[in-house]
């Protein structure tokens, strides 16, 4: 745009303004013209005010502006703005302009009270003035000198929101209908602005509230997330704890559905957590009474009905998913929430199969030991008496002049005495801490001989099945023979008529993992002795190893008790399985030896004495001394006697090294026994051959005689063959 143009516009504007002023003056000369100008000014103001107000969004500023501008428009002394409250029962003067406005501001009145109340209630303008637009009755008719009032409603989009009220025309007089029109126009213009501002304010409030509540929500979410994380951590910790507990733990809800199951519980029940979750408790935790094999009352039911902690009854067996049975001990307790309401049940249980077994074993051993103590006392004397009887019997039998009949009687007497000796020996096995006199040996010979010996002349056949390279064992052959004899004898007694006993022997290497009930890991030789006899009722199977338990009329009930004791003393174990009417199997595990079978091969065949030997016998029992002397003399030996250790040493000194062999009693009541005397004799002659003898075959010294300086051990009562064996072994 060029400067010329601009100057032209300026000029034009100026001219127009001048024209305008001229016209104004001309118009104001006439009454009608004056009014026109006035109206035009009013409208200009109206539009101007309207713009100002509409542009404003702050509600308080709007009210103040409206009051001020409206007062100006209608030249009112006082302009007040009543606005209907949210309850729509009262109204409050939210704005006022003019003298005394402070008294009015924020005053609240009921709708229907006062002139404003009338306008708000009727939603109509009110002019209290000369034009009589409103009166209520004669007394409210406006009179000159009275203050005039002009009120118009402020109409919102849907309903009336308040009013504009002018009180007193500036300079006295009355408001006119024209004032009413102007104020109505103004009210219409600003009501929208007021409503918008109020809506905006509300909206702002709301959005403020929204922001705040949004924040709270965020915080809450944060809190919840934290709580959740804490909960998850807690859960994890609990899960780890639960997993680490050495006992089985199962938790249920009140419906008896499984909600938790730890690792041990998984193992014992055979159910995985995954499978078990949500399942009925009874399905996973099947328990029966060990003796009756009936299902037991479920602890969970009891807890839910009683609300108390309960222990599980004894003899409870848990049947796992795969049918495995385990003795368990447990307790169940209610799970309560913080309000102490029962929300489930927790069950804690453990496998006590092994513990029960060990307890039973211990019990048996204790019983045997007490019996042994009792038996030991009598058995010792009894043994000595038997030795005398047996000695004399064998001496009598050496007499060539005996008649055939007498010889038979004596043989019978001898047989009975042997039986008596065996019984005494059995009793002595029980007595004080006796270790078997062990030697490295193979088992097959001992087993076969013992079994055949028992079964000779019976209608029972014995089948042997032995692995080829059986490991050697360290055994007291006499005792193991006794074991086999006892078991085979029982088996034959359980068979009515003819039957079969099978004896099998094999190597067994047990590892820790092998879960079956058995001895600890290691190398064993396993002996099983099976019969097809009557079988043992389940109700008594637990008792057969007890001393004096017998179902046979003539039974002493000691056979299996002794068997058990012998196997235990060999570091082995014995088990029984039996089925009524089918048969019984005894299984024995004996620890395999790491040594080779040297002593077993060194065994010297029995042969008659080659030369005369000088033998010194030391024993406190005179009867026994005499019998021994007679037996040895009959074998062609020279015998000297001593009653105790001191005497034996004296005799030995005097003999001047002519004594080839000394047989000494291990202990002499009130005197020096063989145990002490052997040292003295070896001092005199380190090459002296001293044999220990005792009725206690299981005395540790008898088992480890070499360590005490003896060359051999002899178990009383003596047999001729025993003497022969020892002499042949020691005197070459």
């Amino acid at each position, binding site marked *: 745009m060029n400067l010329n143009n601009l100057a032209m516009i300026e000029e034009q504007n100026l001219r127009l303004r001048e024209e305008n002023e001229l016209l104004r003056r001309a118009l104001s000369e006439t009454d009608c013209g004056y009014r026109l100008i006035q109206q035009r000014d009013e409208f200009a103001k109206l539009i101007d005010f309207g713009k100002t107000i509409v542009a404003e969004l702050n509600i308080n500023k709007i009210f103040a502006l409206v009051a001020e501008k409206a007062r100006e428009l209608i030249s009112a002394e006082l302009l*007040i703005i*009543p606005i209907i409250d949210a309850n729509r029962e009262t109204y409050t*003067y939210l704005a006022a302009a003019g003298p*005394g406005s402070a*008294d*009015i501001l924020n*005053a*609240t*009145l*009921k709708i*229907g*009270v*006062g*002139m*404003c*109340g009338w306008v708000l209630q009727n939603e109509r303008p009110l002019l*209290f003035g000369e034009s009589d637009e409103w009166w*209520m009755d004669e*007394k*409210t*008719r*406006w009179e000159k000198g*009275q*203050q005039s*009032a002009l009120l118009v409603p402020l109409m919102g989009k849907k309903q009336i929101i308040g009013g504009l*009220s002018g*009180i*007193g025309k500036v300079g006295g007089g009355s408001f006119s209908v024209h004032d009413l029109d102007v104020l109505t126009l103004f009210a219409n213009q600003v009501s929208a602005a007021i409503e918008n501002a109020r809506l905006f304010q509300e909206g702002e409030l709301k959005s403020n509230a929204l922001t705040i509540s949004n924040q709270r929500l965020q915080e809450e979410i944060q809190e919840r997330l934290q709580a959740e994380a804490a909960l998850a951590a807690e859960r994890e910790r609990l899960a780890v704890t639960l997993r680490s507990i050495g006992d089985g733990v199962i938790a249920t809800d009140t419906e008896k559905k499984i909600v938790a199951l730890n690792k041990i519980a998984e193992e014992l029940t055979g159910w995985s957590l995954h499978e078990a979750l949500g399942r009925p408790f009874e399905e996973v935790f099947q328990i029966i009474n060990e003796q009756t094999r009936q299902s037991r009352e479920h602890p969970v039911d009891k807890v839910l009905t009683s609300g108390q902690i309960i222990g599980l009854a004894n003899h409870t067996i848990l049947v796992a998913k795969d049918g495995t049975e385990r003795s368990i001990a447990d307790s169940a307790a209610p799970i309560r929430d913080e309000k102490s309401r029962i929300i489930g049940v927790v069950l804690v249980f453990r496998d006590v199969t092994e513990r029960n077994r060990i307890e039973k074993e211990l019990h048996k051993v204790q019983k045997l030991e007490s019996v042994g103590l009792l038996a030991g006392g009598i058995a010792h004397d009894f043994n000595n008496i038997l030795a005398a009887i047996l000695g004399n019997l064998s001496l009598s039998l050496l007499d060539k002049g005996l008649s055939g009949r007498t010889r038979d009687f004596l043989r019978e007497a001898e047989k009975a005495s042997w039986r008596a000796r065996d019984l005494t020996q059995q009793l002595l096995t029980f007595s004080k801490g006796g270790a078997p006199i062990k030697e490295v040996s193979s088992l097959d010979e001992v087993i076969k001989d013992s079994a055949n010996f028992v079964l000779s002349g019976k209608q029972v056949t014995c089948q042997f099945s032995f692995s080829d390279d059986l490991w050697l064992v360290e055994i007291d052959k006499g005792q193991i023979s006794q074991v086999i004899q006892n078991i085979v004898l029982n088996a034959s007694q359980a068979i009515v008529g003819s039957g079969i006993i099978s004896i099998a022997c094999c190597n067994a290497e047990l590892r820790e993992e092998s879960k079956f009930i058995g001895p600890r890991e290691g190398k064993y030789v396993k002996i099983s002795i099976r019969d097809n006899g009557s079988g043992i009722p389940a109700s008594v199977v637990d008792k057969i190893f007890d001393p004096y338990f017998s179902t046979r009329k003539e039974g002493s009930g000691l056979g299996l008790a002794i068997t058990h004791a012998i196997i235990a003393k060999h570091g082995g174990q014995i088990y029984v399985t039996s089925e009524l009417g089918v048969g019984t199997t005894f299984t024995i595990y004996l620890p395999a030896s790491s040594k080779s079978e040297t002593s077993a091969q060194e065994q010297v065949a029995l042969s008659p004495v080659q030369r005369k030997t000088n033998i010194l016998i030391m024993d406190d029992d005179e009867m026994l001394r005499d019998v021994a002397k007679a037996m040895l003399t009959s074998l062609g030996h020279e015998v000297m006697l001593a009653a105790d250790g001191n005497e034996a040493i004296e005799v030995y000194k005097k003999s001047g090294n002519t004594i080839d062999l000394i047989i000494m009693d291990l202990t002499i009541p009130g005197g020096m026994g063989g145990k002490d005397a052997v040292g003295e004799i070896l001092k005199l002659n380190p090459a002296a051959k001293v044999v220990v003898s005792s009725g206690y075959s299981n005395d540790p010294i008898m088992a480890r005689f070499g360590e005490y300086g003896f060359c051999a051990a002899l178990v009383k009562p003596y047999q001729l063959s025993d003497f022969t064996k020892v002499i042949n072994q020691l005197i070459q």
Partner: protein
Amino acid sequence: MNADKAIDVTGKVCPLPLITMAKEVRTMQKGQVLCIVGDDPIFEESVIDFCREGAHELLEAHREGKRVTILFQV
């Protein structure tokens, strides 16, 4: 009838008499009697409405020309 309090709002026009009266009532105890005198043409009407809406018992009202005296129990 004796009033516990008396106020004069003569010369004042609506809503000032009402506002003045409402303020006064708030300072008084229930059961006390307020006497109010006014000359606004709508005064009598307004006080009667005020008493009805606020459940105040109207005791007395009398007019001397434009001057109206009203007694009511707060």
